[in-house]
């Protein structure tokens, strides 16, 4: 029998469940790692410490009636392979274990999806029937007459809803025809057949935005009275930007704004929008700049594996599961295994979650099936590190010089991210493919646009600069160096070339030169500053 959730329970949401895992569960999880897919019920999450804290705090408050502010909306943004599915499934699996939490994952892939109807899709017909029964019961004692009109009018008055919705609720609760009850429920869920509405003397325009907003409000009111919670994870939100119908896109933004304006009236619902950074979302900005600024305050980044400690933690988590599953000990090979993982072509400069889990599984399988002889360790460890360092330098240089303009953009984004962290700033979001990084430096939010092109020109730069006009945020642009750029007067453009990027990467990793401010860091990348120093 499942139990009811308490605010305190949420603190255990991201705990490592290793000790309670059966061999079967271990096998399933390891299989997902090997295949590069997110486990259905993840048992750990090594990184995202900051985000985990935020989500736990939000959920603790949400399930605490004294602290709850009502509706919660969170946007989770992630780059491809960073573990977005892993993260949202951890939340979903955890909440699904409680009897009073209705947790659903809804994909937003479909075009022209109405947010309100997708929310109602998550609420079963059974719950709607229970809600109608509750609402009708709740006014029964207050009405003078038992006649339907009196009950309906009281529902309208007490719950501040339209008479048409009140009539449908009454029909569901007190109607005699099973058929009509089911039709009324279908209308409330938004999945009705056209002829249903005529049977209830309704017009299509009666079932407008307000109507469905009120349906959701009344259901959530019932949930609150019954100590029930609705958690809906809208996955693949990035598809909204690809919807061809601008009305559908705008309706989605309007709905989110409507909900976020009425958080007190929409209690007991937690909405998570999970979004990949794979799609150019400039349309979202053009469609509704006000929505974008509001969304930014609700958005949290699912970051990649950002440090060696996190990579090490991930490795250890997988290793201990692997050792238990196969009943073997690989501890004496650990250094060699790690080395082999780092050399795996899947890693190749990427720091994403998926690449590491797949590479780790591949190497562990190799060591289980054909354990090679232990490598002899070089006593001169420092010498070895230096050799490795040099090799890495050569690797980065080669990588940069061989990279296409698209890959260069990705590489440069990573260099900037590292630089921002060194100067004490915070990366709020990073879209490598678009070359767009949102950062917070000294409490100011800035957007850095990284441009990489094989044929840089004044005309191209001018065109791009026109498209980067933001009223609310400061912008910096990184553009490849070209001869004529000396004559340009853009103050916020940094002109980089291969030398400055390669040097910057080396400085950041060896810490040969520490950049204390954001401005210094940008100068380090700017070919013009280099020329000034040399002159």
């Amino acid at each position: 029998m499942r139990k009811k959730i308490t605010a305190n329970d949420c603190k255990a949401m991201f705990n490592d469940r290793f000790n309670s895992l059966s061999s079967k569960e271990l096998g399933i999880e390891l299989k997902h790692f090997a295949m590069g897919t997110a486990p259905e019920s993840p048992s750990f999450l090594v990184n995202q410490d900051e985000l985990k804290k935020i989500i736990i705090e939000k959920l603790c408050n949400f399930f605490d009636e004294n602290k709850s502010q009502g509706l919660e909306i969170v946007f989770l943004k992630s780059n491809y392979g960073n573990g977005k599915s892993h993260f949202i499934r951890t939340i979903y699996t955890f909440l699904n274990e409680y009897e009073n939490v209705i947790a659903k994952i809804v994909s937003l892939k479909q075009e022209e999806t109405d947010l309100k109807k997708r929310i109602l899709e998550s609420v079963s017909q059974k719950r709607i029937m229970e809600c109608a029964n509750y609402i009708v019961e709740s006014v029964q004692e207050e009405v003078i007459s038992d006649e339907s009109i009196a009950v309906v009018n009281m529902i309208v008055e007490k719950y501040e809803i339209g008479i048409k919705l009140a009539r449908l609720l009454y029909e569901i609760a007190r109607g005699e025809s099973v058929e009509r009850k089911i039709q009324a429920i279908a209308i409330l869920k938004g999945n009705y057949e056209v002829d249903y509405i005529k049977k209830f003397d309704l017009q299509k325009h009666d079932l407008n935005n307000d109507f469905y907003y009120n349906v959701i409000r009344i259901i959530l009111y019932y949930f609150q009275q019954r100590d029930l919670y609705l958690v809906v994870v809208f996955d693949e939100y990035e598809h909204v930007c690809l919807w061809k119908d601008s009305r559908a896109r705008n309706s989605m933004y309007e709905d989110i704004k409507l909900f976020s304006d009425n958080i007190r009236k929409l209690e007991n619902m937690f909405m998570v929008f999970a979004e990949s950074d794979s799609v150019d979302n400039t349309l979202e900005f053009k469609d509704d700049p006000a929505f974008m600024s509001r969304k930014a305050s609700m958005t949290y980044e699912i970051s990649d594996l950002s440090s060696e400690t996190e990579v090490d933690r991930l490795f250890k988590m997988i290793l201990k599961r692997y050792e238990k599953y196969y009943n073997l000990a690989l501890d004496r090979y650990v250094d060699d295994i790690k080395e082999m993982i780092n050399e795996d072509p899947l890693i190749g400069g990427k720091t994403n979650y998926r690449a590491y889990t797949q590479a780790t599984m591949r190497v562990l399988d190799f060591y289980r099936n054909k354990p090679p002889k232990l490598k002899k360790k070089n006593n001169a460890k420092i010498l070895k590190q230096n050799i490795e360092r040099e090799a890495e330098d050569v690797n980065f240089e080669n990588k940069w010089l061989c990279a296409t303009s698209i890959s260069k953009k990705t590489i440069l984004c990573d260099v900037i991210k590292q630089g921002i962290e060194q100067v004490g700033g915070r990366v709020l979001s990073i879209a490598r493919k678009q070359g767009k990084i949102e950062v917070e430096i000294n409490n100011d939010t800035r957007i850095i646009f990284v441009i990489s092109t094989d044929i840089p020109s004044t005309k191209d730069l001018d065109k791009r600069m026109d498209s980067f006009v933001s009223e609310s945020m400061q912008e910096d642009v990184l553009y490849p160096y070209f001869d004529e750029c000396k004559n340009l007067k853009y103050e916020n453009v940094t002109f980089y070339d291969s030398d400055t990027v390669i040097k910057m990467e080396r400085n950041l990793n060896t810490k040969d030169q520490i950049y204390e401010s954001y401005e210094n860091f940008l100068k380090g990348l700017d070919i013009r500053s280099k020329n000034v120093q040399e002159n």
Partner: protein
Amino acid sequence: MYKKIRVKRGDCPEAFFKIGDYAFEKVDEQCKSTEVYKYQFQIEMSIKSEIDVRLWIEDIISQVKFLTIAPEELRKYIQLFEENINPNEECLFHDFRTRFIDFVVIKYEVNKEMKEDIFLYGYSMDEKYVYIVVKAFSLITLSEVYTCIIKNCLAQDLKFILDEDIRWIRLNSYKVKDDMQMPSAQDKEFLKKTLVPTNFDTFYKIFRQVDAEGFLSKKLYHEYLYRDGKPLKQVSKFFSPYWKLSSSMPEKTKNILYLHDEVPEDEHIDSYVYAFKPGLMKYYLQNWFEDFTLRVVQDMDWGSYSVVHSMKGCRFNFFNNDDENNVREIDLIIEIQKNNCSKIIAIECKKTLSRKEIQMTNKKSKEKVLESGNNIFDAFIHIGCFKGDVEFDIPFNGTREKYKQGIINAESDSYDAPFYAFTIKSIGDYQKKIFYIIEEIFKNW
């Protein structure tokens, strides 16, 4: 002529009943028909109205769509479509025996693809129970509905009574039809005697010798089959003496065993040996250990566990196609239940268990069971009567005996399965070891 049901999607002028996109037609017995799977649930749940039973199923299976506005009375469909049919024909509605019926389309993911299928959902209610009959036209669909219902009942602590484990039904559907070989009266008698624990100890020693040489020397025969000077007739009756002669050939000496059942008259002659009576050797080599295992499993005290099903010496095609190369024979399959949890286990019985034997069998299990994507076994067990070159490394707790455990890895995205291996020394030893392994499987898998 006996007619069967075929379900189609889209246009079907011959259909006797259509609903939504689905058409049901009757076809002659020899035509390709649709396998119809009927399954019954009895759930302790107080529900008064038919609408509540419909909404209950909609609540627990997220992607379902009902093809009628409201639940309908079953008798309407019987009257309309099955009142005047040949009683020998396969029926669609008549055998539901419920009051209400719903036609439901379910959407679910199978092998990473979304599948849409129809099932018929009949139900009746009384004060204490809801009686549900599901008719599906694919086992996967039935499994999906079954899983959702059972999962919900367990989560809600609802008591239920079922037909049988759906996986066992699935297992039967993968079975390849074969002619069953019936054991002879002598075989049965032999099996019966080997199941007596005191006899088995003697048989065990003899079997080791027979497996090594093919016969028992006169000296060992007297050592094993006489107790306090009296012959052990329960055992000795299965053996006959044969002459064993040496024939000198120009190149080398050859031993020749003369198979005839004449009793040697001269008791002083040492050159005769004892072997199984004719016909019994074949049974001993091919079937005895499987039968013996099945009887040990069936007869032992399982405590809180129970053996709900068993199946011996059947061949399966888990790929569910006509390719003979995919067929896999499994010596013994048992389904063991504890509380509401059941495990289906494939057992391979080997007279002498060797490392190579385990490797080969695991390879076949991987290729012909796991990689099919239709594995329904929770574990595979190799049991040997005698130990070959296999190394056992995990101790049975509290004893000096050991077993082997490992994983059969699936290369595709199918899940792995565990295997266990051990050998036996006596019937008591066998019972203790198999009980221990089953407990391990319940604990971990």
